[in-house]
């Protein structure tokens, strides 16, 4: 029999061997800010469960190491990830002394490296399977449902990040909805303003360079400075324009964050609209003109549908970027998940940082996958229609 190694599998097997046998699986701390003590897999879990987890990791790593069928690799990565996710909760319960509410158990480097290794395997399998856009969204939904079930079932409740959450459940959802409103609201505003501006720039060549240059320069202003610079003009508007304060416009808080995100969002939307419209084949335009279409008909019937995938790409860039940038709004009292990140950095409480960072990353990631799928669907639809 001819045994062949998988190149990526060698990497995965090496890092998971290190993580499983040499790195700590969980960290135990007597309270939330003292330095922690490392616990290996066998120390962090009841003996039989610990041995079972090690066995699962070894088998999954071996499946990755050799050239094995894709379905087997898929199963190995999913089983390993599920076991890790379930058992890290068990480690939390096992390591926390009964009735002790100060002790904190958090996943340690070994756990994160193992998650990384098997996510790499899963990502490789999914890439090789070449899933359809709907398939990718399906995987995302399934993964979110699994994580949601774990959260609802309470099996992670003894982990420190959820203890931080339990202390702040109300503000978590309030900041979360602020975060989403900021990111989506500024995107909507940027699309409403940016699309017509992009069309105008496409039609009127003299405007194009000027508008794009100004928007380019706005992008170079660091986000924290732009947030800060908007405090003064908005404060002035709030005190001098009647009714502005009633609309919630104030110097500090959500208003400057919203305007800053809006300004950053304009460039990708306008630039991609211009690029998309410029990429419309001349023949399509000529044919439309020849058919006697008016300018407006041509715009909505021909140019816009053809440029749509490129414009959507701009919107994807903006959405992912806004979800990340909205964390900085917390510095000027704008709320969002950044509140927990900066509080956590201030108190050197890393679980609190995670409480802010994990949902942000998850949101950005989900937004990227969904919009990528939509872009691919519109692009293939266009190819089918034009073919």
């Amino acid at each position, binding site marked *: 029999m001819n045994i062949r190694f998988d190149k*990526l599998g060698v990497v995965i097997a090496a890092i998971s061997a290190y993580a499983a046998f040499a790195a700590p699986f969980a960290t135990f701390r007597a309270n939330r800010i003292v330095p922690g003590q490392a616990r290996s897999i066998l120390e962090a879990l009841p003996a039989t469960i610990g041995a079972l987890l090690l066995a699962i990791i070894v088998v999954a790593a071996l499946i990755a190491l050799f050239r094995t069928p894709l379905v087997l690799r898929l199963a190995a990565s999913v089983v390993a990830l599920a076991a890790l996710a379930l058992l890290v909760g068990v480690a939390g319960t096992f390591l926390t002394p009964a009735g002790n509410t100060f002790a904190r158990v958090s996943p340690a480097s070994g756990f994160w490296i193992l998650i990384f290794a098997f996510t790499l395997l899963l990502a490789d399998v*999914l890439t090789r399977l070449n899933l359809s856009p709907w398939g990718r969204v399906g995987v995302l939904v399934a993964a979110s449902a699994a994580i949601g079930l774990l959260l609802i079932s309470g099996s992670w409740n003894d982990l420190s990040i959820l203890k931080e959450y339990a202390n702040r459940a109300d503000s978590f959802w309030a900041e979360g909805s602020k975060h989403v409103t900021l990111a989506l609201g500024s995107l909507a505003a940027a699309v409403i303003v940016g699309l017509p501006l992009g069309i105008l720039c496409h039609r009127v060549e003299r405007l194009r360079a000027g508008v794009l240059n100004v928007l380019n320069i706005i992008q*170079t202003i660091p986000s924290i400075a732009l947030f800060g*610079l908007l405090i003064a003009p908005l404060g002035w508007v709030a005190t001098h324009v009647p009714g502005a304060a009633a609309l919630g416009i104030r110097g500090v808080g959500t208003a400057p964050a919203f305007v800053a995100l809006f300004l950053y969002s304009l460039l990708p939307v306008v630039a991609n609209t211009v690029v998309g419209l410029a990429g419309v084949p001349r023949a399509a335009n000529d044919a439309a003109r020849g058919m006697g279409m008016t300018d407006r008909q041509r715009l909505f019937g021909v140019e816009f549908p053809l440029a749509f995938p490129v414009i959507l790409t701009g919107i994807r860039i903006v959405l992912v970027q806004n979800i*990340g940038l909205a964390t900085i709004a917390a510095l000027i009292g704008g709320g969002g998940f950044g509140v927990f*990140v900066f509080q956590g*950095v201030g108190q050197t409480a890393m679980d609190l940082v995670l409480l802010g960072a994990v949902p942000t990353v998850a949101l950005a990631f989900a937004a990227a996958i969904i919009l990528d799928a939509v872009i691919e669907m519109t692009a293939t639809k266009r190819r089918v229609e034009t073919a």
Partner: protein
Amino acid sequence: MKAWLPLLLRLALVVLLVAFVTNPGWFEPLLKPLTENNAPVIYNQGSLLTLTLLHLRTVLIATVAATIVAVALAILVTRPAGAEFLPLSRSLVNIGQTFPPVAVLALAVPAVGFGEKPTLIALFLYGLLPIFENALTGLTTLPANVVEAARGAGMTGWQRLTKVELPLSAPIILGGIRLSVVISLATATIGSTVAAKTLGEVIIAGLLSNNLAFILQGGLIVAALAVLIYDGLSAIERYTARRMGREAA
């Protein structure tokens, strides 16, 4: 006459920037109206020049490291031996871009402590992506006849890489570096939330003491640096593109 104008504007910007960071006192009357209650007008907890140089140093170290790693990775996945990694590396680049800089910074702190290191890690990770993407584009869109000719001339794989493929992709790779530097210049300011010595310190001091003059001077120095470096790198890019007879992306 018209061709001179942009060059003149840039020169003026350089002069202004150098004058500001070396002698900020000269500009005090300009910024004075932005402060209230006799607050200091010019950042007074450190020299602007030192902070600017530290800011540039942080960006430079991160970009050089990112360039070396990203180009090496792109070369690896475009060789026959590494071709297996190509699709995966593409999806990893896509995933990597979804991590917000603040999260990377904050999560790097427990591993490496406060200060410059977490900033370098975040800038390095952010710098990797655009350079890797462009290097990949450059190396995979080489004109096939040129590569064939090099093979036909009896060049070894290494010779083809260093004498044909890399020089031909240089303008596109430079485009990635330019993008990465501009992103890093702005992102480095966020590093000051975890105590890195960058121009972000000035901006954050302004946010904390409600001093608009501080925010403006910190922000404008970074923006001016970004515009100038962007222009400079674009010029180098056009020059190499002309020499290689290839359109810059």
